[in-house]
């Protein structure tokens, strides 16, 4: 953010041009948005069959879909599965990550498993998860947890390992109990890492929930998209995509805001 303002202030644009409303960032952004929507509308009208989603069609069905009880309950189910899955992953992922970060034996024992499952696309275990939990909402929750857990635990591990040694020494010389060291030193000190992990986990959890709904066919935004696109109601289906994008973007914004507001000391890269 600061880099951008500095760049703007130093950029060799003549004053007359800079003050003009045509080059103001807000105007450019809005204009670009309108142009993109017009291109979309034009391309679909010219080349695509009538059922394909286009801005005018989406606007037409927006009010009806957004007040539709079925749509709202689908959105609620997907988002609550994502939130519950994230909470489970935060609690257990942080515990496992901290244990790995502070206790060498645990780290050596789990490192290969946690790292390789972190690198695995969790979609791949979807059929296995449905064998375990059946074709129901539990399978979706399990996929969300699997998708989110490992990014939180690897980041919690990095965070716990990055705690400055002096802090721990001071705690030790004041005879802090292990519990106090954990909650008053290790936890706050690794918060930036936990938030970075949470940001990654949230994106993966959203993908996991949608994919699970495609596969398992349980009510939710993913299934809403699948069902409506199969019956050639692309405009309706696209509104579910818009909700997913809004959730993804606002989560990203929330984490950025939290980091800036409460953790200004954290190194930003």
């Amino acid at each position: 953010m600061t880099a951008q303002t500095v760049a703007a202030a130093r950029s060799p644009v003549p004053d007359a041009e800079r003050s003009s409303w045509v080059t103001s960032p807000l105007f450019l952004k809005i204009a670009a948005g309108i142009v993109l929507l017009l291109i979309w509308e034009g391309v679909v009208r010219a080349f695509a069959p009538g059922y394909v989603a286009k801005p005018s069609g989406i606007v037409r069905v927006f009010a009806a879909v957004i007040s539709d009880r079925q749509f709202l309950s689908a959105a609620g189910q997907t988002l609550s599965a994502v939130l519950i899955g994230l909470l489970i992953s935060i609690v257990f992922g942080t515990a496992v990550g901290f244990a790995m970060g502070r206790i060498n034996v645990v780290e050596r024992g789990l490192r290969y498993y946690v790292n390789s499952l972190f690198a695995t696309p969790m979609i791949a275990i979807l059929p296995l998860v449905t064998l375990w939990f059946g074709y129901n909402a539990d399978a979706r929750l399990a996929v969300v947890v699997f998708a989110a857990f490992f990014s939180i635990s690897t980041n919690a591990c990095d965070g716990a390992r990055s705690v400055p040694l002096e802090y721990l020494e001071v705690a030790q010389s004041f005879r802090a109990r292990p519990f106090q060291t954990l909650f008053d030193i290790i936890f706050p000190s690794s918060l930036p890492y936990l938030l970075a992990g949470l940001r990654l986990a949230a994106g993966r959890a959203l993908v996991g929930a949608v994919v699970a709904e495609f596969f398992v066919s349980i009510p939710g935004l993913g299934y809403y998209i699948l069902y409506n696109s199969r019956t050639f109601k692309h405009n309706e289906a696209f509104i579910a995509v818009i909700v997913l994008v809004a959730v993804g973007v606002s989560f990203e914004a929330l984490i950025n805001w939290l980091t800036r507001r409460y953790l200004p000391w954290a190194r930003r890269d």
Partner: protein
Amino acid sequence: MGSEARWARYATVIVSLLVGAAVWEVAGRYTSDAFWATLSSTLRSLFDLLHSGVLMRQVASSFQLYLSGLSLAILVGAPAGMLLARVRWLRVALENYIMMLYATPMVALIPFILSMMGFGFAPKVLVVFLFAVFPILYNTVEGARSIRPELIEVAQSFRSSEWRLWFDVMIPYTLPFTMTGIRQAIARGLVGMVAAEFFLSPSGLGQMIMMGSQNFDTAGMLAAILIIVLLGVGLMDLGRYIENRFAAWRGYKP
């Protein structure tokens, strides 16, 4: 850490791998076959698949898809990102939309792609491409935002041609950021590959997993999942290597 510590480290890693293998085997023996297969039967299944040539064929098919989508994403994402780095008004106009698409769960678009483009190779490449392109574009643009205007000013005051400006300033400066994007794209593209193989026309490793689950051949399914885990680990290491290889160029950032 002395030699004793090093010895202990190897010992615990080996013990942990052995315990994992034992847990896998025992879990397979004491549960139903549809639930979890033993390590030995998984390895036997893996060996059979390797021996009959099925594994190589499916891995090759997956790789063809993955590399087509990923290289397309790099070929489009990197130049487009650099163009946005140079043309400031275009970047200001588009950066919020790129960020939005970067945060979009692209799996949600698969049903649309399926009903518009049907089954075939092209829609699957499109899925991998969509998963992979926005991390590259987003990171390149983020890098471009932090480019120091002095660099361009100096080049311009020495009457650098546009061509030299690109090759001596723009590309060297933004490349490390692009590499971070490519690292993310490598991981996301793999997710896209599996998703495309599951939900569009079944092929490759995704098809192997699907068929294993439909035929209750849990050993075959676990064998395919194991290959995907190894692929994921290998590709993540490759991505980290590529990123670190260029990270030093960021050197003078405060």
